[in-house]
């Protein structure tokens, strides 16, 4: 599953494509499944054709989390939520179910230390 993200030109805010509009919450974003690759390309192209509205338009991969969708990439999670050192800053400050689902998303970049780097003497 994919979504499309960009930064709004005027304020740099993280936004997501939704049917020709740009919304601020990943939870409101339009989702594209693996059969909609052409739609993804079309939307990205449209976005790139709006240089006075958004910059850096690109698709992101999503993974399911608690009934919602979360970015696979940790970087995109931080973009969708806000900085991890300050929970009252960024979109995460709203709280709510969708935000919690994002915060609890498993997988990428929650390092479990499973890589065995310790040699036993």
């Amino acid at each position, binding site marked *: 599953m994919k979504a499309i993200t960009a930064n709004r*030109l005027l304020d*740099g805010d993280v936004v997501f494509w939704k049917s020709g509009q740009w919304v601020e919450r990943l939870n409101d974003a339009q989702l594209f499944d693996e059969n909609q690759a052409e739609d993804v390309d079309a939307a990205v192209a449209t976005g790139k054709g709006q240089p006075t509205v958004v*910059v850096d338009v690109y698709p992101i991969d999503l993974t399911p989390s608690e009934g919602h969708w979360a970015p696979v990439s940790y*970087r995109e999670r931080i973009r969708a939520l806000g900085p991890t050192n300050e929970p009252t800053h960024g979109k995460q400050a709203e709280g709510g179910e969708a935000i919690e689902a994002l915060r609890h998303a498993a997988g990428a970049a929650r*390092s479990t230390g499973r890589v065995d*780097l*310790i040699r036993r*003497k």
Partner: protein
Amino acid sequence: MYQYDVIDREFLVDRSNEFRGQVSRRLAGELTEDQFKPLRLMNGLYLQLHAYMLRIAVPYGSLNPTQVRRLAEIARDYDKGYGHFTTRQNIQFNWIKLKDAPDILDKLAEVNLHAIQTSGNCIRNTTSDPYAGATSEEVDDPRVWSEVIRQWSTLHPEFSFLPRKFKIAITASAKDRTAAKVHDIGLLMRQGRDGQLGFEVIVGGGQGRTPYVGPTIKQFLPTDRLLSYLEAILRVYNRYGRRDNIYKARIKILVAALGAEEFAKQVEEEWEKIDAERADLPAGELARIRDSFATTPFETLPARSEAFELAKAKDSAFARFVRNNVRAHKQPGYAIVEISLKATEQTPGDATAEQMEVVADLAERYGFDDVRVTHAQNLVLPHIKLDDLPTVFAALQANALATANIDLISDIIACPGLDYCALANARAIPIAQDIARQFADPDRAEEVGELKIKISGCINACGHHHVAHIGILGVDKKGEEFYQLSLGGSGAEDASIGKILGPALPADKVATAVDQLVAAYLDVRTDGERFLDTYRRVGLEPFKEAVYVQAD
């Protein structure tokens, strides 16, 4: 402090008007993002993960209370009530909107602040010793020369589109508090045999993907030839620096490719062709700039202050603060006071608007209106009377500004990292906080002694990890945050690049690893040895074992 005159002020107004025009053209679609990007970068405006980031120049780390208060205002009115001090002595705001940037630049210009050339492929903020004018160690006040370079490099028409960014640092003390040797140009002020002042010129130092301690290109450059020699260096770089690959475009690559000797020769040849009279600064202008840094009106005081001694004896927290954060001043009865922005659980280098105002007030009441920023992301009040120190300490303490950890293990340099920065691979702030928490006990931190930990969230090395006693580099390993440790780097006069310790560690193992390194150090250190000294004596192996080998 340098006093802006009408010319300097009009310049800032013109610059801010120019940027306002450029933003309008961008919003109207008359400029593409590709055409606009260097223009906004040359006014310090980055597009980061959550918003625009504005990097405001703090020339050679020097601020007055009016300026600090204006920064606090901007933090409140245009950001989220705080700012972040950087490893180049600048200040950054993380939550800026493009549409507000022209107004912000106007407000900065009103107090003689700007964001000129804090990014972009041009000459950046020239950094210098935060103790300038206060330390007895210096052969001259490096702020004078920093200001000379600042003006000369501002909107330099020939050097505004270099192959890559260009950073100059200048120090005038034997102890280097500027990391000069890992700059594109490091200027080390020296006194020649006949007492004449000059610079040892280092070119091609740097960090990032390919760290280098820069070679000396010229042993002694008389100070009155500074600008023509800089012009020669920049011209050789502008012409022959690589432009085909941004990872190979810094001057350090050119110096390494040609070899220091050949590079020096090319600079010398270019320098000989430059008309010195047109290029070097007239003596009259140098005198004018020097005058504005004229002696601070210190009082004549005894070296010993009874109030100070009493407070030390009575208050162990104050005594600890003095031990770690207070440095000797050239003037008897005064002290240099470092303000740590590394309290436990705080984001390293951040200060709230309220904290900024406290510092402004203290500088105004007790400190000759003088505030400095260090490249370790801390602040300095360079001229405080010992008599006033207990009062200043109390004010700092009341505002979470009195953490007594300067140069200790919890005085960590950390870049904003993946929490804020579009370039990052991993987060730096939580790692810093983990380690600081581990060593939050001030007795333990003092027992460990001087230990400089520096954390970068990516190879661009804004956290200066290459020149850290323990350097930590965040890397992305298959989508997960891992951290590569290195040991034995130094950004001081004994500059060295750190050596990689071993395979990168997952985030939750880093603080433990640091603990193990410290334990290994404490185990074998001899009297008076800092961590860095012990490492240099015993090598990497004992430390490698401490982290990567476990006894059953």
